[in-house]
């Protein structure tokens, strides 16, 4: 794997989606729908093939040379003492995994979109934005310079903004898009400031340079803690973690393929990627790591609770995404980078699956999203239900589905290597999350597909066309068997059954000895116990859900009645975060801006000038009184002045 190979392949994989985006943006409006579709999906297909080649390159590379960088061009060079940034790309196992996730899932979603957006007039625009997103995401994961990473980081926010607001005549979509973008820009600023700290401290933004110089940070010192906290804030904004999570549910205003691609599979997991990528820094900042882990698991719990209470099908999945990303963030927070990345990959598969299956449902019901108005869809949407079920099983962590491997893997690592004195506390919370996940995952399935149809439209629902079913089916197969295949493979090579192959593949990146879930071995009793308990938790949740919602006439209120009255209320209103932010941030700023316009500008800013001009007018009015127009008056002024002058001269002369 040579530098030039990396340069060529990276250039190719970046240019393909970009070319697709530009082509569709500039001439898409003149092309037929078929051509537009071909450009949109074809560019991603090509990118996927290139990604496969790149994966093959990484796999084929000898041990110890699994990572290579290439310098494309110099972005900015301000000379000695100044900023130097090169447009560098890097290819290593970590970016290869991300490439496969992005282009693979992205390709399926693009194909799916052909069907889903069939009747939309803005198809060229849609594919242009989608390709732009793939391009941005690839920039993000390929970047070998923090600044280039930030550019990709912001570009994905941009494409997310564009796609959330895709239906631009819908005011709620417009507002949601802006909210998402501004929140992420706040995260960008945190990232930028982290970059400043890094560049001031070690003089470079090049990521290999940063990682090489990481030991120059005092371990656990204030500086590294601040840097990592800022990086984490950037990650939280992108990954919709508390307290910057409120944009994600609103982002469901976008078309469903967008939710599947951006707000489930790829972009929102970029935060996980960021922390994993910067693990050499995080490893030296235990406080920041602990913070990340706590925020991750806290968000997971919170989002799980909210997911239980929502009634919009996409919002339920959105909150489940938030919850699952919370788990990944937790994982990378405790140093289980491989486990986090593995969950990222499996989650990308099954969550995209869930979204697309939900998209099928929405499509069949003509844009109905309220699950209270569904029910009994399994008769008409048999295949969709099967696929959905595969995703639900994976999400809930039912054994041998993909999610089981990744989730139990990271929870087991948390038990043995978790931070602080009581890692088992976090583990128990994790088991609780498993219960919650089982509950909301099966609740969704049960309310949508089982029970009595709630509206007449359900009877008229028709199964989605093949172009929408095939990608869903592929993902369903993946989510059913991906984990199993890798697990069997792991057993063959005598490694950890849960994530052995995956962790081994990533081990060149996460070289730090303590990390790497290789340390978790199923042969130890604790880990076995952990896996069993965790699985039992998932099953418990699933069982409870079945118990509650699989009755002929499910009555969830019977359950909620037993809870404290405030809890369902709080959960349904998403813990009032939107309202709190509105009151604490938005309103004061708007009031401040209004005060600036109404008070500060006229009273203070203009008053200075006004005072001067008024004084000049006053002076003029005063002088005007002496301008009588009488020559003798003028002469008397002149003579008086001359007299003063004479006297002054004489006084000075006589001194």
């Amino acid at each position, binding site marked *: 794997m040579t530098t030039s190979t990396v340069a060529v392949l990276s250039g190719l994989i970046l240019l393909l989606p970009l070319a697709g985006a530009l082509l569709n943006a500039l001439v898409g409006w003149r092309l037929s729908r078929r051509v537009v579709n071909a450009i949109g999906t074809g560019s991603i297909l090509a990118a996927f093939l290139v990604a496969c080649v790149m994966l093959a390159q990484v796999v084929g590379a000898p041990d110890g040379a699994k990572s290579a960088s290439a310098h494309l061009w110099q972005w900015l060079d301000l000379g000695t003492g100044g900023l130097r940034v090169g447009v560098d790309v890097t290819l290593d196992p970590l970016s290869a995994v991300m490439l496969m996730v992005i282009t693979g899932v992205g390709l399926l979603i693009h194909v799916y979109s052909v069907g889903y957006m069939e009747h939309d007039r803005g198809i060229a625009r849609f594919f242009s934005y989608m390709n732009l997103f793939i391009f941005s995401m690839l920039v993000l994961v390929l970047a070998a310079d923090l600044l280039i990473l930030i550019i990709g980081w912001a570009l994905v926010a941009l494409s997310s903004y564009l796609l959330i607001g895709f239906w631009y005549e819908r005011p709620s979509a417009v507002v949601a898009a802006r909210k998402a973008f501004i929140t992420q820009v706040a995260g960008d600023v945190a990232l930028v400031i982290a970059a400043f700290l890094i560049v001031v401290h070690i003089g470079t933004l090049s990521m290999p340079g940063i990682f090489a110089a990481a030991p120059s940070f005092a371990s656990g010192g204030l500086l590294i803690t601040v840097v990592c906290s800022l990086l984490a804030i950037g990650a939280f904004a992108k990954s919709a973690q508390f307290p910057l999570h409120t944009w994600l549910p609103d982002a469901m205003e976008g078309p469903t393929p967008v939710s599947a691609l951006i707000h489930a599979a790829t972009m929102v997991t970029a935060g996980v990627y960021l922390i994993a990528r910067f693990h050499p820094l995080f490893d030296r900042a235990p406080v920041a790591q602990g913070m990340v882990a706590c925020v991750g698991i806290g968000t997971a719990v919170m989002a799980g609770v909210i997911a239980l209470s929502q009634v919009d099908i996409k919002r339920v999945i959105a909150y489940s995404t938030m919850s699952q990303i919370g788990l990944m963030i937790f994982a990378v927070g405790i140093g289980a980078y491989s486990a986090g990345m593995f969950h990222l990959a499996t989650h990308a598969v099954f969550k995209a699956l869930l979204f697309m299956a939900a998209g099928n449902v929405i499509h069949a019901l003509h844009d109905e999203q309220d699950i209270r108005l569904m029910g009994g869809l399994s008769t008409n949407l048999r295949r969709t239900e099967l696929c959905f079920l595969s995703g639900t099983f994976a999400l809930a962590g039912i054994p041998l589905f993909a999610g089981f491997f990744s989730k139990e893997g990271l929870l087991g690592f948390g038990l043995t290597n978790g931070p602080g004195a009581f890692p088992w506390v976090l583990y128990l919370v994790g088991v609780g999350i498993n219960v919650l996940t089982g509950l909301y995952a099966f609740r969704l399935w049960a309310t949508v597909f089982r029970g009595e149809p709630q509206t007449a439209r359900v009877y008229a629902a028709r199964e989605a066309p093949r172009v929408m079913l095939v990608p869903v089916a592929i993902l369903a197969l993946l989510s059913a068997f991906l984990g199993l295949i890798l697990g069997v493979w792991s057993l063959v090579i005598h490694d950890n059954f849960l994530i052995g192959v995956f962790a081994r593949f990533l081990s060149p990146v996460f070289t730090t000895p303590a990390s790497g879930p290789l340390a978790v071995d199923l042969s130890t009793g604790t880990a076995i116990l952990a896996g069993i308990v965790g699985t039992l938790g998932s099953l418990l949740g699933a069982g409870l859900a079945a118990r509650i919602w699989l009755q002929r006439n499910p009555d969830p209120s019977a359950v909620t009645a037993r809870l404290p009255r405030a809890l369902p209320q709080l959960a349904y209103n998403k813990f009032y975060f939107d309202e709190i932010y509105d009151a604490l941030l938005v309103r004061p700023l708007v009031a401040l801006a209004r005060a600036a316009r109404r008070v500060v500008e006229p009273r203070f800013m203009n008053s200075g000038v006004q005072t001067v001009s008024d004084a000049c007018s006053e002076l003029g009015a005063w002088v005007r009184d002496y301008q*009588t127009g*009488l020559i003798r008056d003028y*002469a008397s002024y002149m*003579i008086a002045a001359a007299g003063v002058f004479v006297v002054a001269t004489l006084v000075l002369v006589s001194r």
Partner: protein
Amino acid sequence: MTASANFPYLLALAAFLFSVGALGVLIRRNPIVVFMCIELMLNAVNIVFVSYGRFLNSEEGQVFAFMVIVVAAAEVVVGLALITQVFRVGRELDIDDLDELNE
């Protein structure tokens, strides 16, 4: 007492004539008299020129005084012409009535 001893007194005389002329400009209302007072002031200046020329042993003082006389003559010609015109329009010969400058 030589002539040179009178020099400061000549300056004092010039100052007196000048200031009395200025006083006249200020207090007289008849423009013709005001013109005379101005002539008085010009003459005062001429004294200064001439006496300095005399005591610095130079002709330039006289030359300047000559110029002053010529200018004064020109000024009187134009000024008196103006006065006759003002009078012809039917105005009082009162300088305080001429306040068109006070717009």
